[in-house]
C-alpha cells in the first residue's frame, strides 16, 4: 500500500525540501531533488499500471480525518485503469518536462522556486487523479489551480504575467464554484462522497427531480451540469476559455506541462471518471458534446490568424480539448481519454519545441519575426514536423487514431452525432491549416528577425532536444495502442483496457462508413496542409490579400471574436470599478474593519458592561464566588 501512497508523496517531499532549503542551500541544484522524485513516481506508476492491467482495482483508505458515529470523512487512493493511464501521462510528461526545464530555466533566479512549484503541481495532479472520493478530488482540483496560478505568474515582476495569473485564477473560480456545489449536492443526494458508493447508487437516482430555484429539475442532470461547470473552467471550454491563451505568459515548460498535457485535461478526466453519473442524464451528455464540438471549431478558427507561436498552440489545445469533450458527450469515453493520452504527447512536444524556438530567439514569440529556422535548428524542425503530422491526424501518427476514433464515434451517434462529426471534421481541416501555417511561418522562407538575433541562432542543447526526441517517439507511437479493428484484428487495446471503467461505446456501423470517415478526415488533414503551403510558401502574398479581402472576418478572428473585450466591458470593468470602490474603499476599511471591529463593538457594549464587574478588588471576587456557591445551593434546593 505504501508503494501507491508514495506516488504522490515523493513530489510532495521534493517540494517541501526545495521550498525549505532552496533559497539558501540548494539554489541551482533544485533539479537534483525534483527529478529523482518524479522519476520515482514514474517507476511506481508503471508498476501500478501493471498491477491494475489485469483488470483489478486498487482502492486503499489512506486515513480517516474525522470518524464519529456514522459521520465519516476520510481520504483514500483509488487506482483503476483510468487512473493508471492518467498516472502514466502525468509522470511521463512530467519527467520529460522536468528534464527540459533544467535547460530552459537555467540561470533563472527563481530556479528552486520553479521546481518547487512544479513538484507541488505534480503532487496535486496525482492526488486529483488518484483520489477515491470527491473530497480528495476537489482538494487536488483546487491545488492544481493554485499551482497554475503560481506558475503563470512565475515572473511576477512582469505585469502581464501577474495579470494572466489573476485572470486564470478568477475565471477558474466560476467553474470551481459550480464544481463545489456539485460535490455538496452529491453528498446531500448520495450521503457519501466515495466514488464507489456514489456511482453504485447512480442508477437508482436516475430521473429523480428536485425543486431547484423554483422549477423542477432532474437531480442527476443538475449534478452533472454543476460538475461540468468545473470541467469547463479547468479545461478552458466555451465560455470560460479566455484564461488559457493568456496563461502562455508563464514559462514554456509550464505551458507544456500544465496548460497542455495535464491540468487542462483534468476536466476531461473528471467527466470520464463520473461517466456513471453522466450516462444517466442525456441532457448533460448533449451539453458536453455540443460545448465540446463548438469549442473545437471556435478555437480552431481563432488559431488560424494568430501570430504569437504559443498562442496558436494554446488555441489548438482548447480546440483539441473540445474534441475530447465531444467524444465524452457522445458516450465514447474511452475515445476521449485516448485522445487525452495521445494529445498529451504531441501537444507537449509542440509546446516544448516552440519553447526551443523561443529560447533560440531570445524570447521572441511573434512568428512574423521568424522564418527559415529549419537550417539553424534541424532537430527542433524535425520534431515539430512530427508533432504537426500527429496533431493533424496523418496515418500512422498518434493523433490519427485518437481523432479518428472520436469522429467515428460521433458519426455513429445519431443525427446530432452527424452534426458533431461535421463540426469535428471542419475543425480537423482548420487544425491542419493553422498547424502547417505555424510550421511554414516559423521554419520556412527566410529569417525575418533582427540580424542580431540571426547571429545568435543555434540548435538548443541536448538537455532540451533529448526530451523533445523522446516525446516525438511518443507522438508517433502513442496511438498504436488504439489501432481500430478496421486496420487490425483485436485492435483498440486501450478501449478494451479502459472498458471496465468507461464501458463500451454504443452504436455500430459498417466498414464502408468507417472507411468513409477515415478517408474524409485524412483528406481534410492533407488539404489543410496544402492550402497552408500554397498560402505561406508559394504565394506568400495570398495570405495578405485574403486578410484584406475579408477584413471584418479576419479582424473578428484576430481579436478572438472579441470575447475578452466583451467580458471586459460587460463583467470585468464594472466589477473592477465596483471593486475599486468596494474592495479597496469599502471592504478593506469598512467590511473587514467592520467585521473585525464592528461586530465586537456591538457585543462590545455588553462586553464593557461585563468588564466593570471585574473591579480588580479581590474581596469582591471572593464575594462573587460565595454568591455563586449560594446560588447553586439555592438552585438545587429549590429544584428538589
Amino acid at each position, binding site marked *: 500500500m505504501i508503494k501507491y501512497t508514495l506516488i504522490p508523496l515523493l513530489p510532495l517531499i521534493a517540494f517541501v525540501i526545495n521550498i525549505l532549503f532552496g533559497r539558501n542551500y540548494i539554489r541551482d541544484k533544485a533539479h537534483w531533488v525534483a527529478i529523482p522524485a518524479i522519476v520515482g513516481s514514474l517507476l511506481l506508476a508503471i508498476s501500478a499500471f501493471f498491477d491494475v492491467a489485469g483488470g483489478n482495482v486498487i482502492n486503499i483508505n489512506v486515513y480517516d480525518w*474525522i470518524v464519529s458515529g456514522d459521520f465519516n470523512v476520510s481520504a483514500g487512493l483509488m487506482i483503476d485503469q483510468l487512473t493508471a493511464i492518467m498516472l502514466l501521462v502525468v509522470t511521463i510528461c512530467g519527467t520529460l518536462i522536468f528534464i527540459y526545464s533544467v535547460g530552459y530555466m537555467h540561470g533563472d533566479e527563481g530556479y528552486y522556486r520553479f521546481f518547487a512549484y512544479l513538484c507541488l503541481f505534480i503532487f496535486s495532479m496525482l492526488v486529483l487523479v488518484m483520489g477515491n472520493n470527491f473530497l480528495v478530488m476537489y482538494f487536488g482540483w483546487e491545488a492544481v489551480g493554485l499551482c497554475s496560478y503560481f506558475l503563470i505568474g512565475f515572473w511576477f515582476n512582469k505585469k502581464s504575467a501577474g495579470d494572466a495569473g489573476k485572470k486564470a485564477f478568477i475565471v477558474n473560480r466560476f467553474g470551481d464554484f459550480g464544481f463545489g456545489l456539485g460535490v455538496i449536492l452529491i453528498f446531500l443526494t448520495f450521503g457519501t462522497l466515495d466514488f464507489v458508493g456514489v456511482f453504485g447508487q447512480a442508477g437508482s437516482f436516475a430521473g429523480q427531480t428536485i425543486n431547484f430555484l423554483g422549477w423542477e429539475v432532474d437531480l442527476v442532470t443538475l449534478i452533472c451540469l454543476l460538475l461540468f461547470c468545473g470541467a469547463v473552467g479547468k479545461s478552458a471550454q466555451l465560455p470560460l476559455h479566455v484564461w488559457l491563451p493568456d496563461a502562455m505568459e508563464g514559462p514554456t515548460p509550464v505551458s507544456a506541462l500544465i496548460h497542455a498535457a495535464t491540468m487542462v485535461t483534468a476536466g476531461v478526466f473528471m467527466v470520464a471518471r463520473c461517466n456513471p453519473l453522466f450516462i444517466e442524464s442525456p441532457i448533460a451528455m448533449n451539453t458536453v458534446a455540443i460545448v465540446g464540438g463548438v469549442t473545437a471549431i471556435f478555437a480552431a478558427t481563432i488559431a488560424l490568424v494568430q501570430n504569437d507561436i504559443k498562442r496558436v498552440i494554446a488555441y489548438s489545445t482548447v480546440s483539441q480539448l473540445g474534441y475530447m469533450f465531444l467524444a465524452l458527450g457522445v458516450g465514447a469515453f474511452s475515445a476521449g481519454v485516448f485522445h487525452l493520452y495521445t494529445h498529451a504527447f504531441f501537444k507537449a512536444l509542440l509546446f516544448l519545441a516552440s519553447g526551443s524556438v523561443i529560447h533560440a530567439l531570445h524570447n521572441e514569440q511573434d512568428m512574423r519575426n521568424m522564418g527559415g529556422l529549419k537550417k539553424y535548428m534541424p532537430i527542433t524542425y524535425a520534431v515539430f514536423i512530427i508533432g504537426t503530422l500527429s496533431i493533424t491526424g496523418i496515418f500512422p501518427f498518434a493523433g490519427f487514431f485518437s481523432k479518428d476514433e472520436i469522429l467515428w464515434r460521433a458519426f455513429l451517434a445519431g443525427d446530432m452525432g452527424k452534426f458533431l462529426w461535421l463540426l469535428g471534421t471542419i475543425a480537423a481541416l482548420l487544425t491542419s491549416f493553422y498547424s502547417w501555417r505555424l510550421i511554414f511561418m516559423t521554419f520556412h522562407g527566410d529569417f525575418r528577425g533582427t540580424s542580431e538575433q540571426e547571429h545568435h541562432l543555434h540548435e538548443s542543447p541536448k538537455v532540451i532536444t533529448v526530451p523533445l526526441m523522446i516525446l516525438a517517439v511518443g507522438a508517433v507511437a502513442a496511438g498504436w495502442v488504439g489501432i481500430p479493428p478496421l486496420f487490425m484484428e483485436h485492435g483498440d487495446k486501450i478501449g478494451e483496457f479502459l472498458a471496465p471503467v468507461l464501458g463500451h461505446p454504443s452504436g455500430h456501423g459498417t466498414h464502408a462508413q468507417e472507411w468513409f470517415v477515415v478517408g474524409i478526415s485524412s483528406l481534410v488533414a492533407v488539404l489543410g496542409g496544402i492550402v497552408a503551403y500554397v498560402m505561406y510558401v508559394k504565394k506568400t502574398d495570398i495570405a495578405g490579400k485574403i486578410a484584406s479581402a475579408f477584413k471584418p472576418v479576419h479582424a473578428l478572428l484576430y481579436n478572438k471574436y472579441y470575447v475578452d473585450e466583451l467580458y471586459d466591458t460587460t463583467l470585468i470593468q464594472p466589477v473592477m470599478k465596483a471593486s475599486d470602490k468596494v474592495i479597496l474603499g469599502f471592504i478593506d476599511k469598512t467590511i473587514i474593519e467592520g467585521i473585525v471591529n464592528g461586530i*465586537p463593538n456591538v457585543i462590545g457594549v455588553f462586553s464593557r458592561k461585563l468588564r466593570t464587574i471585574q473591579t480588580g478588588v479581590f474581596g469582591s471576587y471572593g464575594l462573587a464566588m460565595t454568591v455563586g456557591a449560594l446560588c447553586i445551593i439555592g438552585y438545587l434546593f429549590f429544584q428538589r
Partner: protein
Amino acid sequence: MNTEVGISLRDAIPFIPELVIICTGLIAMMLDLVVRKKGPVAAFVVFGTLVAGYAMCKLNGFNEPQSAFLNMFILDGYAGFFKLIFFINLILTVCISYRYMIIEKSSYGEYYSLLTFATAGMMVMASATDLITLYLGLELMALSTYILAGLMRNDRRSNEAALKYFFLGAFSSAFLLYGISLTYGMTGTTNLNEISATIQNLNIAGNPILFLGLIFIMTAFAFKIALAPFHMWAPDVYEGAPTSVTAFMSVGPKAAGFAVLGRVLFEAFGSMQVQWTNILIPLALLTMAVGSIVALSQTNIKRMLAYSSVAHASYMLLGVIAGTPAGLVSTINYLLIYTFMNIGAFAIVILLRSEGFQGQDLDDYRGLAKSNPLAAALMLVFMFSLTGIPPTAGFIGKFYVFMELINADKTYLAVIAVAFSAISAFFYLRVVMYMYMKDSDEPRTISCSPSMNVALAVTALMVIVLGIYPEPVLNYVKTVVFG
C-alpha cells in the same frame, strides 16, 4: 501488638514517577545553590521529567491499573494520560521560559524547582483516589503556583497577581475542605470508591448535607478550572504573572482540575449525576458567555488569552456534561490539543517580549507579518486553532466535544457553544488582522532562543498534525482512558 498494616515498600512502586519528579525538584534546588548559571538547572529539570515519563511508561499503568497506599493512590490510564499532559506542559514551559526569565531579570533557580513541584502536585491530583491525597496534591500545586505568580518580585503587577491568587486560592481550598468534611461526615470515608459504595448502600443520594459537600467540593474545582463566577481571579493573575508562568498555569492547573473533577464526579458521585449535571450546565453556559464576550473588549493580549482560556474551560466542561465515558475522552482530547495551542500562543507573546519592550498590547502586533513573517504565521496558526478553524487541531477538539454532546442528546448546548465560539472568532482573528492588515513603523526585536524554537516547532507541528491526522491520538486516548 505488632500487627503489620497491609502496606509495604512495594506499595510505593506506582508512586515512582512522582518520586522522580519531586527528587528532580529537590536536586534542582540544591543545584541552584552551587551553580551560577540557570541553564544547567533548566536542562536538569527537563531531563528529570523525561526520566519520570519513561518510568511511567515502564510501569505501564495504561494497561493494568496499580493502586498504592491503601487505595489512596492509583496509576491507571486516566491518571497516566493526564500526567503525560503535565509532562508536556512542564517541558514546553521550561523551553519557552529560559530566555524570558533572563529578560525579566528574575531568572531564579527556584523557578524551575517550583514548576517541578507544581507538576508533582498535579500528578498526585490526577492519581488521587482519596480526598486526602486529592487535597494534598491540590495544595502542593496551588502553593507552588502562588509563588510562581509572584516571581517577579519587583514588578507590582506580579506582586498583585500573587496576592490575589493566594487569597482567593486559600479561600477556595477552605471551601474544598469544608465540602470534604461534610462528605466524610455523611459517608464515613474519604475513599472515592467507598464513598460511591456508601451512597448506594445507604441510598443517601438525596441527602441535603451530602449535596452541600458536593457543591462545596465542586466550587473549589470550578475555581481551579476558572469557571464563571469562580473565574474572576484568572484574568488578573494571568495578566500579572510572568508570561511563561501564565502559560504554565493556563494549562496545568486546569488539566489537573479536570482530572479530579472527572474522577470525583464519575467515581465518587456517579449516582448523583443528575444533580451535578444540573449544576454544571448553567456554569458552563455562564462561563462561555463571560469568557467569549468579555474577551472582545480586551486590548492586552495576555488578558485576552486569559478570557479565552476561561471560554475554553467551558468547552472542555461540555464533554464532562455529556456524562458519558466518550464525553470524558473528548474532554481529555481537547485538553491535549489545548495544551499545544495555548502554550504556542503564549510562546509567541513571550517572543515579542524583549528588553524595554513589553509586547503585551494588541497594538504591538501591528504589521508583525511584515517584520517577522514566521512569527506571524505561527501566531496565525495558533489563533486559527484557538478559534477552531479546520484543519487545525482546535477544530478537531471542538468537533468531538460537540459530537459527544449531540450523541448525549444535549444538542441545544452544542448549538449555543458553536454560537459562542463564533463570537470568540472575532477577538482571535482581530489579532490576525492586526498582524497582517495593519502596519507599524517601529522596528521590532524578537527574543529567540534555541529552546524557544524547539517549543514553537513542536507546538505548531502538533497543532497541524492533530488537526490533519487526529485519529491515532483519539483512539489512543480512548483505549488508554477506558480500556
